[in-house]
């Protein structure tokens, strides 16, 4: 489905701060997989997402989506097939627009944004039903501007918006990291629900080991631009948080982190 081949990326090349992150990094995602990526700061998780989404270019290597080379494509063009939810809840919604308006533009993704009426009245009930799933009462607040919602509500809305038109690939960039534990749990459960319901191939970067173990179908641990652990299926099912923590600590001791 998604394939990263021989990705190379060096930051601050040619300066004293030069840091080579990826050298010939490879990753393959199969159709329908829900992959959780964990790893310490600077391990390359977010850079990997940025290279896939196109908001950052790799120095060399190719990004294949269903066999098509997309590494030369602009970010907004790739977005036609890739959905994304950011860590910052403010990035997934338009704060000055109402929930209804936000849902309407998200629903129009892939179609033309012409001079027809922006607010989708015909689908109002459908939007209501989507928002009802959240259990946050947003379905009765369609005319509230998104900027007045709390972080958790905005992130939940952002997630619904990102998946309203089903993307082929969903990138979740530590999307629960900026939320309080309760809101994070709600958003995580919702993510799991939507992803399995719509069968979206997903790549989720998280700092939360529990989420990486409990949710998804495959877990990847990254360190220093490489994959140190990649488990799926039965092998994964038998691993608990403690096992991951052990590896995590071993690496940390090695590198003195």
């Amino acid at each position, binding site marked *: 489905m998604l394939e990263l081949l021989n990705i190379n990326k060096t930051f601050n090349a040619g300066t004293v701060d030069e840091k080579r992150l990826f050298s010939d990094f490879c990753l393959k995602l199969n159709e329908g997989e829900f992959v959780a990526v964990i790893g310490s700061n600077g391990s390359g998780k977010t850079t990997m997402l940025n290279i896939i989404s196109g*908001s950052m270019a790799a120095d060399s290597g190719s990004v294949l989506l269903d066999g098509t080379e997309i590494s030369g494509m602009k970010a*907004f063009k790739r*977005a036609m097939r890739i959905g*994304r939810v950011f860590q910052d809840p403010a990035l*997934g919604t338009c704060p000055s627009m109402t929930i209804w308006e936000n849902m309407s533009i998200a629903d*129009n993704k892939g179609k033309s944004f012409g001079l027809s009426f*922006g607010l989708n009245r015909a689908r109002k009930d459908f939007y209501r039903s989507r928002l009802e799933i959240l259990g946050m009462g947003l379905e009765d607040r369609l005319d509230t501007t998104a900027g007045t919602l*709390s972080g958790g509500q905005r992130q939940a809305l952002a997630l619904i918006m990102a998946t309203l038109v089903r993307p082929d690939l969903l990138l979740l960039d530590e999307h629960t990291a900026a939320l309080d534990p*309760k*809101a994070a749990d709600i958003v995580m459960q919702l993510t799991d629900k939507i992803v399995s319901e719509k069968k979206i191939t997903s790549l989720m970067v998280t700092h939360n080991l529990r989420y990486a173990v409990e949710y998804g179908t495959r877990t990847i641990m990254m360190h220093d631009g490489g994959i140190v652990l990649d488990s799926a299926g039965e092998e994964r099912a038998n691993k608990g948080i403690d096992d991951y923590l052990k590896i995590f600590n071993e690496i940390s001791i090695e590198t003195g982190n």
Partner: protein
Amino acid sequence: MHRQRADMEALIVGILEQGLIYGIMAIGVYITYTILDFPDLSVDGTFPLGIAVCFVFINNSLDPWLALIAAFAAGCIAGAFTGLFNVKLKIRNLLCGILTMTALYSVNYAIVGKATDFLGTDCTTIFSQTKGFFIGHSEVYSKLIVILVIALAAKYALDWYLRTKSGFLLRSVGDNESLVITLAKDPGTIKIIGLSIANGLVSLAGAVYCQYSRSFSVSSGTGTVVMGLAAVIIGTTIFKKIKFLHITTGVIFGMIIYKACISIALSAGLQSQNTNLMITILFIATLMINEFALKKKKSGVNRGA
């Protein structure tokens, strides 16, 4: 006594006329400053561009309404250049406006061929064409009504546009560029469209002003952007609270208030060469009131999850 009332009436009508003309310009500034978050200084060049284009049309006995449309189109093109400088050439937004403004100074001069010029008394304008509809005392309001119709048309057209799908994108791009990218749309293109419409409106205001003042001056654009910003800030600060009013209406009212302040100051004995200083003081005062109001609002919000 009677004389005084007539003077007062003329003063108020004058304020309203100018307030509405510059109000059209201000809603253009509202697009760039508030919606796009783009400090666009090209306005100082596109306002006289509208005057210049309209001047040439009228001087060549072409239809005065067609002159308005041509001026609007010219403004759109100029605005698109500002956008292209920013999006394609990656020049900083403030500098893009300055570049367009500077270039337009020469362009405007070239269009008219002189630094200042006046329309002949026999030239047909939108005002001379419509004057016949007003009989008796209502003639005092003839210009005002024509201007009001144009200002309302511009305002409603913009209000309508902002409610279309394309308008939704315009509103999101200033607010949250990442969202536009995730919607698989190029934020750059939308920015160019926004700047284009904004400067089209500014140029349209210039064209109306040209027919109103029957004159062209290459330097008549100086201070336009500050005036527009002042109106936007007055309008959005004072009229934000009133829910049933569109912000665009507030911005036009902002310009009328602004013009009223200047008129009152002038009639109270302010030397006209000092108006720029007064404008700046008024501008800073509104900004500070705005800032104060924002702070008060922010401290009242409880930050939950």
